[in-house]
């Protein structure tokens, strides 16, 4: 096969795949609940078919060679999203999907190290509360307080990570569950944290003199304020994704996976267990803290029910649905679950039931998730192109 024809074929594939992904997400977002579930099932079927026929390796290779093109498709899709979405509510769903994706990416660091952390919502909440309280009580700029929120969450992550050095498996899960419940109870019992009433009137981000909570006008067209946050959240998600992918492909990510496979073998290979585990917790918590800050300054209200145990479970659900230890899959899982969750808003009584049933079905039928984790290829993408297929 000629190099040039292969090249153009790969370009077409990478553009097509990313376009299909965006289109499916868009259909799920605008359609009714049935459409969202259908998209999920369709995506799973496509993946299974691609895996069975061996096409999936080809797709991944094409995507790896032409990341720039598929990235362009996704960026254009996010940029025009406010244009093609008919109402503000759907934009709001998209923003929430972005925020939760950042949290799920953070949780993925710990899951990739073999530590299922049930306290993610506590990190998310620490970021949100720190940022909100500093902005309200001291009048600091929300940009600055979000950074403080990240730092606070990362510190909490290190504290919560210490038990991981001594225990693992069930015991670690029980500790994180206990800490999550202690966190929730402490917030309810502490009056200056808002107690059960939450914190209202959290200031919004502002650029210069314009608050992001004001509608914007671009090229003479009116956009609702959610569009501001959409661009902000998705650019931060892009940054988070970049960091996560770089880490995943680095020696740090490799060390994390080695620990997940077998701790004792990892130690004999010279991996510093303390450093790796604490880093996974601190970084994951920092991601969650960033998302928490964004959440607080976006919705302008935070309450304790946004950060309780069931929320932690939802984050685990997102990571499992997307595919443990595959950053792209985790983001897709988070987006899909957020969309399905918002569609179920009318049937609020059934939400937790749906989450638990989805979790059981994934575990039974496809424990590796939508996009399973990949074996690393440690060569430059260019050299793979030259391989004859």
């Amino acid at each position, binding site marked *: 096969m000629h190099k040039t024809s292969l090249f153009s074929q790969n370009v077409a594939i990478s553009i097509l795949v990313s376009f299909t992904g965006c289109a499916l997400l868009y259909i799920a977002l605008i359609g009714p609940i049935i459409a969202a579930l259908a998209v999920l099932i369709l995506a799973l079927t496509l993946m299974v078919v691609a895996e069975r026929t061996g096409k999936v390796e080809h797709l991944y290779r094409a995507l790896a060679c032409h990341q720039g093109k598929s990235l362009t498709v996704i960026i254009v899709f996010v940029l025009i999203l406010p244009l093609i979405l008919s109402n503000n509510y759907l934009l709001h769903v998209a923003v929430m999907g972005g925020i939760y994706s950042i949290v799920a990416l953070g949780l993925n660091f710990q899951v990739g190290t073999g530590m*299922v952390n049930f306290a993610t919502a506590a990190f998310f909440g620490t970021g949100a509360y720190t940022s909100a309280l500093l902005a309200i009580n001291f009048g600091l700029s929300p940009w600055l307080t979000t950074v403080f929120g990240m730092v606070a969450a990362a510190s909490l992550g290190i504290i919560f990570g210490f*038990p991981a050095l*001594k*225990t693992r*498996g*069930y*015991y670690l*899960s*029980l*500790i994180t*569950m*206990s*800490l999550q*419940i*202690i966190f929730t*109870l*402490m917030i*309810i*019992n502490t009056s200056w944290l808002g107690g059960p009433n939450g914190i209202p009137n959290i200031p919004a981000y502002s650029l210069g003199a314009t608050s992001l909570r004001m509608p914007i006008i671009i090229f003479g067209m009116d956009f609702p304020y959610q569009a501001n946050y959409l661009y902000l959240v998705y650019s931060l998600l892009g940054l988070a994704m970049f960091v996560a992918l770089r880490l995943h492909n680095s020696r740090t990510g490799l060390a994390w996976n080695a620990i997940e496979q077998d701790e*004792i073998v990892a130690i004999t290979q010279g991996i510093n267990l303390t450093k790796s585990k604490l880093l996974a917790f601190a970084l994951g918590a920092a991601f969650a803290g960033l998302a928490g800050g964004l959440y607080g300054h976006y919705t302008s209200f935070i309450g304790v029910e946004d950060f309780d*145990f*069931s929320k932690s*479970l939802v984050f*685990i659900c997102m990571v*499992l649905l997307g595919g443990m230890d595959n950053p792209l899959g985790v983001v897709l899982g988070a987006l899909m679950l957020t969309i399905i969750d918002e569609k179920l808003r009318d049937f609020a*009584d*059934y939400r*937790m*039931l749906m*989450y*638990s*049933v989805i*979790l*059981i079905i994934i*575990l*039974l039928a496809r*424990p590796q998730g939508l996009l399973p984790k990949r074996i690393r290829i440690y060569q430059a993408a260019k050299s793979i192109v030259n391989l004859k297929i």
Partner: protein
Amino acid sequence: MSLVLSQIINAVMLGCTYSLVAIGFSLFFGVMDVVVFCAGDVAIFGAFSIMALVGIVFLQPILDAVFPHYVTIFLLVSLSSVTTAFLMLLMYRIVIKPFEGKSPLMPLLSTIAAGIALSELIGIFYPQGRNPQAFPQLLPSDVMIPGIMLSERNLIIILATIVLVTMLYWFVNKTKLGLSIQAVSQNKEAAIMIGINRQLSITITFLIGGLILGIGGFLVASYSNIVRFDMGAMYGLKGFSAAVVGGLGSIYGAIVGGMLIAFIEVFVSAFIPGGTAYASIAAFLVVVIFILFRPEGIIGEKTVEKV
């Protein structure tokens, strides 16, 4: 003095209910090496099934007319605990058996999910299931000794636990089936090799565990007078904590752990000013400290990991 005494009785009662759930966790962990997180929800399902039985018109009056009141209660509780026993078996089939030999975190997640699904189903299908329900007072609550809260109900809760634990002790140590369960939990391969039917042992363990959980649910509902559909998660977590603090896999450890957690909770809320809100926090802190510094529990042998 009478305050301390009545608090001790209170703590013993709470400890009894925690111990029963902890025993369930320990039984399942012993035989399958999995943490069955839906145990608390199964227990609360037991309490709701009793309420449903009492709710059936004429059932209780007819039974009361035929039998003495205690026999009626016994029949109702037996019926509901048989239900929970089979529910537990169903849970085993759906969310535990498929994950045998896979990562231990999968059954952990699937049982948590199953527990939530169960409690949500109660919330959806039980009439006004999302509101707290007053649990019918089946046990007489006459105060026997005034001043120290020793009512008939409290005595029955404590006695029922003692009887149950004794029967379990007899079953596990004196019957062939019980010994085969012990053999499976000590060494799976060796047990199969000497001709023990492992599948049967597991099935029996889940049935017995479910039975104990059903009775535990009835006792905890009688103790607190109010049941909520989502009570099971917290109840299960306390029971699991008790099992871990006592020593996972040991029945005696489960009782010791249950009592310890209950005493901490009751005494923090009774004797520390404003402590009621922090009772659960104190209990969970103790659990964290225990796991960190004595992960094998109060009763339990230290296991050294083999490569």
